[in-house]
């Protein structure tokens, strides 16, 4: 009796798996059915945010900017007269490639008109192919890798590539009188690309790079003591830290071993964040960091805080907002909400064909209804998209850390983005 049951078990299991597969296949076909209906219906604003993983700290700012954009678009009457809907998913970081693709697939299954994000260049690389194949335009608010310029006609970004940030940072370091610079950089494409530009600019301005011109550390590094003692042995005037969340451990170790983490430390957009909960007050006061993109205006910050009370880090919020608005305007201009139409009209609404400048979705929508060419001038201060999908103009914000270890906006530099 028992024997029979055991013999039957594999059969039952196989049948169950087959049934499950058929059910899944059914799901797939039904979703493609709904997709055709949605392409003729409402604009679907898709988004991929880092809600987990090492970039999770960027999540709140992006999410609230996304919600604000949705609210503003719908308040002005939606796209083509219909309120828009959203589809979001968590993409985590590049260490979780499975989560990258499953997040992208989950949003793609909702047949979005556009996908905002992901913010990380490495994650973009993992997902852009499947998104482009689905003919859905993708607008990243934070992917700054130079390698992504023109990578696909469906890839756009509202943030300038790193070549620009590195040039500004290199000059800021040089003008502060640093003669010997040590660079602690993690072995990630973001880090090494940015490092190369900083090294080039700083050396041209007369700064000697004493550590880190070639050396890197592992992104999964946990023990920073050997790295810091190596850096300390080169006796640098200042240290540039290019990393993500590893910064917390690295900076504490630097301070513990006696390197100056105050006025003699520089950071980049990957780690210029709010450290008030992580460090004792004053640990990094006076340190300098750069973040590409305009500093969100006070009014914009207040609007975001109304959406998400207690928001303190605004990195990439303006870029997320502008990307969402541009995509909605592109659909409005093209008269359809499918990805191909949005992709074709994105450059035009960003001002590539000139046109009347307008600052809000409502104003731009009114101009579009009068069949005028528009140039959306948003929060991020970017120029029109060039043919590589990069912004043609951008600004880099320079921040100084306050006594409670929060980055405070100091000034910003504007300029043209070189087309690489």
């Amino acid at each position, binding site marked *: 009796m028992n024997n029979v049951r055991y013999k039957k078990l594999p059969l039952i299991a196989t049948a169950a798996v087959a049934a499950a597969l058929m059910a899944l296949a059914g799901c797939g076909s039904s979703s493609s059915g709904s997709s055709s209906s949605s392409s003729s219906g409402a604009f679907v604003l898709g988004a991929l945010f880092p809600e987990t993983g090492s970039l*999770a700290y960027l999540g709140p700012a992006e999410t609230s900017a996304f919600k604000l954009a949705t609210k503003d678009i719908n308040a002005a009457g939606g796209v083509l007269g219909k309120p828009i809907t959203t589809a979001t998913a968590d993409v985590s970081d590049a260490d979780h490639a499975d989560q990258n693709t499953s997040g992208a697939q989950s949003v793609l299954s909702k047949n979005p008109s556009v996908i905002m994000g992901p913010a990380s260049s490495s994650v973009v690389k993992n997902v852009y192919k499947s998104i482009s194949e689905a003919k859905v335009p993708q607008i990243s608010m934070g992917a700054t890798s130079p390698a992504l310029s023109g990578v696909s006609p469906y890839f756009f970004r509202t943030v300038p590539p790193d070549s620009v940030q590195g*040039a500004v940072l290199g000059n800021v370091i040089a003008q*502060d009188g640093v003669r*010997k610079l040590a660079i602690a950089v993690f072995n990630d494409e973001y880090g090494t690309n940015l490092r190369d530009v900083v090294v080039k600019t700083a050396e041209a301005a007369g700064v000697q790079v004493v550590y880190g011109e070639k050396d*890197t550390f592992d992104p999964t590094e946990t023990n920073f003591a050997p790295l810091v003692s190596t850096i300390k042995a080169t006796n640098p005037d200042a240290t540039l830290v290019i990393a993500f969340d590893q910064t*917390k451990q690295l900076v504490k170790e630097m301070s513990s071993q006696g390197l100056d983490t105050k006025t003699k430390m520089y950071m980049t957009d990957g780690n210029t964040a709010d450290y008030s909960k992580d460090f*004792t007050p004053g640990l990094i006061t006076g340190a300098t960091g750069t973040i590409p993109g305009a500093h969100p205006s006070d009014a914009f910050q207040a609007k975001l805080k109304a959406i998400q009370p207690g928001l303190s880090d605004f990195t990439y919020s303006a870029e997320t907002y502008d990307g969402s608005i541009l995509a909605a305007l592109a659909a409005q201009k093209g008269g359809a909400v499918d990805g191909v139409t949005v992709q074709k009209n994105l450059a035009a609404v960003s001002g590539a064909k000139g046109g009347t400048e307008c600052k809000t979705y409502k104003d731009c929508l009114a101009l579009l209804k009068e069949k005028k060419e528009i140039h959306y001038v948003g929060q991020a201060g970017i120029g029109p998209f060039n043919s590589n999908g990069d912004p043609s103009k951008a600004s880099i914000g320079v921040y100084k850390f306050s006594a409670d270890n929060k980055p405070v906006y100091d000034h910003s530099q504007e300029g043209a983005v070189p087309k690489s």
Partner: protein
Amino acid sequence: MTAVRRKLRKYPARMLLSAMFLMLLLAISGVWSTTAQAAQPVPVCNPTGTNGCVNGILQDANRNPVVGATVTLSGKESATTTTDDTGKWAFSVTADGKYTATIDAGVAKDHGLKANAETVDIEKSDFSKQRGVVRFDKPGETTSSPSASGSASTSSGSSSSSSASTQSSSSNSAGANFGARVWQQLYSGIIFGLMLALMSVGMNLVYGTTGLSSFSHGEQVTLGGLMAYVGVQLLHMPLWAAAIFAIIIGAASGLLQNELVWAPLRRKHVGTMQQMIVTIGLSMVLQYLFQFFFGGNVKGITTAVDQGFQLGPITTDTATLVSAAIAIIVIIGVTFFLYRTRLGRATRAVSDNAALASASGINVEQVVRVVWILSCALAALSGVLMGIYLNGIAWNTGAVLLLLMFSAVTLGGLGTANGALVGSLVIGIVADMSSLFIPNDMRYASALAILIIVLLLRPQGLFGKLQRVG
């Protein structure tokens, strides 16, 4: 005739241009609008869409600011300024083009600067050219030779000699640095090895008594660190109380998983290979649970940074020394437990031959339960110490350290108590010392290379006993 016409054509354009400059200047700053000169000396200059910057810090060879020196700007636009208390000077310029900043040749000479003039190219719309930094020095040639800024021929000659002398001095200092680094890296290697030993001892005990290589041991370490974080940051306990809290939670988790998972699996005679796969699954479940509850970022157990002090040739801090002391005491304690107490002897008996131990009246299940509790409590303690030493703990810290633990116990000899200590120290020291010679991010490779070599020469590990086959 043509010249006149050209002049006529040019003149209004220039008028228009200078008028535009004036307007722009008026627009950006009402303060400096009194003069018609386009370039302006300013305290701090930041490039915007409408102005570029030529600026710098005037420092002597020893990086002391040169105060009150006159800097003259010429080129497209011209202006004059003096350096402030920190040696800073800045000009805001409006036209794109070449600018030359000049200081008095005597000043340059007095302060050992190589040049007294430098030309920069300003282009407002180009990020790399909108700010021109002028330093009047060349890094690496900081040794001041008094004749450095004489005539062109002598300066070139002396500069080559000065650069040669710098080279030798820098290689000297590199040698001194190397000596200091050897001690520093050896020290950090020993500390890291001790922490690793504390983790590995527990893992090795489990392996010794049950034959199970626990892949979820790393998560027990993470659990300890995260519980200390909960204790200090969320429940506002003092650190020592949080550490005890973490150890109790760790021990409880050991007891719980033995009762719920490992004891039933052993009763059903599930093979150690299958049990090992279960530990891998458990490891993944725990990792993602941690991430779910604590998020993906690094959690600092303490926000304060212990300021380091010099102890002979090494820099260290109190927390590290205390952690190391705790690790040593606990490892000695465990060794004492294994060799001097009744239960410890029973553990070793089970470790040597479980069937024989059982036959001679030792309650094997009881011993295994104690081993699980002890192992997880040790892991929790090491998680706390590691979290403090590494300045933070994340959901995957344990998983990252797991392979090093495996290497350490394999190197020392699987299932031997002392082997874990020695193996961990070897891994820690070799890894940290190797960053003297090879890139820092490759240092664990050297430690694992040692592992392969040792196993080739001594397959049972440093402390393992040769197993008799058959």
